[in-house]
């Protein structure tokens, strides 16, 4: 009896020890990510101090980016980033939601469904520089002929072309997440609706979409994050000009592509610091958009 008791005590003590160790290491790893993000922000702020001091608020609203005269204003790039990302989102949403519903509800199993699912996931795996080349050599001439028909200056590249490329690149993010969400809708709910005489479309509209909307929106948010930060593909087809675009067919520039383009040869320290501040602004824009998105998701689920 006594021996058994002591073994049992020993065992449970070891188990507790293990539990605590496991929990502790999880906390440590989670915290280290937090520390990393804070360190990013901190480094960005410190390195952009010279330009914050020299330019102040005019950095955000200035319309000229002139490295020769040391005048830096990010307004055109801020506009370019937001314009390309939201336009891309607008184009991609019908596609990604359709794919999600198709694969989640109509054909959840079978070889065709698997094939389609894998090909869509592959879209996310293609390196962005390949999208850039494809955009420059295939999409740009197509857009140019469209522009000729519309009667705008036929640049072929610009905000619209970048948004198209981005839209293709971000489809899989919202589609994959949406598909998983739709598959998670309890079949009891769906069957109840069917038994009441609902058609398939009515089930999708009144049961599946309301049930999975927070997940669908989270997927959209994920795609938006990807679109905001995309650099290589955009820089190849956006036209890289710091003139403020007047229409969506005009060339423009985004914050990420300015950084990628100009960082290597930025000679003066104010120039370098301004580019880092541009990174800081991009960081903050992403954070703000994410926070707004989180609020919206919260409101969705609270309903």
């Amino acid at each position, binding site marked *: 009896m006594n021996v058994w008791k002591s073994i049992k005590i020993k065992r449970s003590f070891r188990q507790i020890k293990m539990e605590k160790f496991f929990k502790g290491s999880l906390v440590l790893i989670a915290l280290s990510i937090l520390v990393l993000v804070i360190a990013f922000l901190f*480094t960005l702020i410190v390195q952009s101090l010279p330009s914050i001091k020299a330019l102040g608020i005019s950095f955000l609203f200035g319309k000229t980016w002139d490295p020769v005269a040391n005048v830096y204003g990010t307004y055109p790039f801020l506009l370019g980033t937001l314009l390309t990302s939201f336009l891309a989102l607008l184009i991609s949403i019908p596609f990604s939601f359709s794919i999600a519903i198709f694969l989640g509800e109509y054909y959840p199993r079978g070889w065709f469904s698997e094939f389609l699912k894998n090909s869509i996931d592959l879209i996310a795996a293609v390196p962005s520089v390949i999208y850039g080349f494809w955009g420059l050599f295939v999409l740009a001439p197509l857009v140019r002929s469209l522009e000729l028909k519309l009667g705008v200056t036929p640049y072929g590249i610009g905000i619209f072309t970048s948004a198209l490329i981005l839209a293709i690149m971000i489809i899989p993010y919202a589609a994959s997440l949406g598909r998983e969400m739709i598959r998670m809708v309890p079949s009891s709910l769906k069957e109840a609706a069917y038994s009441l005489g609902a058609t398939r479309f009515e089930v999708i509209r009144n049961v599946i979409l309301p049930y999975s909307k927070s997940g669908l929106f989270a997927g959209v948010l994920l795609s938006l994050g990807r679109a905001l930060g995309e650099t290589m593909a955009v820089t190849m087809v956006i036209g*890289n000009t710091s003139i403020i675009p007047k229409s969506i067919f005009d060339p423009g520039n985004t914050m990420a592509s300015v950084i990628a383009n100009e960082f290597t040869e930025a000679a*003066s320290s104010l120039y370098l610091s301004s580019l880092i501040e541009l990174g800081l602004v991009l960081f903050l824009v992403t954070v703000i958009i994410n926070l707004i998105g989180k609020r919206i998701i919260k409101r969705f689920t609270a309903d």
Partner: protein
Amino acid sequence: MKIKSKIKSAIVAALALAVTGSITPGCNGNSGKESSSDSTSSTTSTNGDDKTLLGAGSTFVYPLFSKQFSEYNKLNGLKINYQSIGSGGGILQLTNKTVDFGDSDAPLTEEQAQKMGVPALHIPMCSGAVVISYNLPEVKDTLKLNPEVLADIFLGKITKWNDAKISAINTGVKLPATAIVIAHRSDGSGTTNIFTDYLSKINDEWKTKVGKGTAVNWPQGLGGKGNEGVAGLVKQTPGGIGYIELAYAIQNKMSFAKIQNKSGNYITPDIASTSAASNVQLPADSKIFLGNTDAANGYPISGFTWALIYKEQNYSSRSQERAQNLVKLLSWNIHDGQQYCEGLHYAPLSPAAVSIAEAILKSATFDGKPIL
């Protein structure tokens, strides 16, 4: 409890480490660079391998350097590791003393020279031309452009190819009414520096409105990344015009314009006319932009690329042998090494440039004594 407190203290320690780690390089922005120079200078000296030299800088000169260095390796067994990270990066690495030499397509600016603290020598390695490429499928003859027209195009004052100013200098050529679409580099680049320096020299409006630099605020046009980006834009857009490195334009069989030089001659950009551009009275330190050259047969838009080394070679406990290897290598580059230029479409140094380069190399010292 014991374990919990242990974990707690571990977390605290990790946090402290992470925070201090992130603060120290951040807080003293500049000294971060200096501390890296300490660690790396020790690597250059402690690796003790004086048979390997390190260089970094211009991407423009990279194909030539690879060829020259591999040939030199066959002759002398000296290994040279050159990273083509861009002129700005090369200058930064030399400032940090992580490389033996840098290479830049522009002379050091005052700010850069000040950061270096000690005098650095500029040794011209070769020169390159920037050509004006255009896309007019209807036009079979080579287009001629003069400085005034060129500047007006890039300022956005001439917007159609059949503008009277262009037809006036291209008599007999039937020009289409196509709109001009300008393509420029979107990345910071020595090519842009050479081209905008030329425009600033020949046009006052350009000088005051735009100026010169590796990246400028373009009044007009689309930006493409790298020579291939600009070339792609020009090739794709009917009516496109852009500036590209000579070597790239030749290799890709692009059409480019003859440009009128200071003496009034229309010059086709090629290796001979680019070399000729540097065959003029050069300053003793060779720090000159060759744009708008005085040479009568010289192509007006060209520039040197310079290898950069410290004048006093005894720093961070370098060996004399290392310094000697470096100076000898550069001396070979400007003499025997020049034979590899033409095959790769670089313009070899003109006789005037070689003699200046040699004089500059001879001024390099080790402990105050000349090396060559």
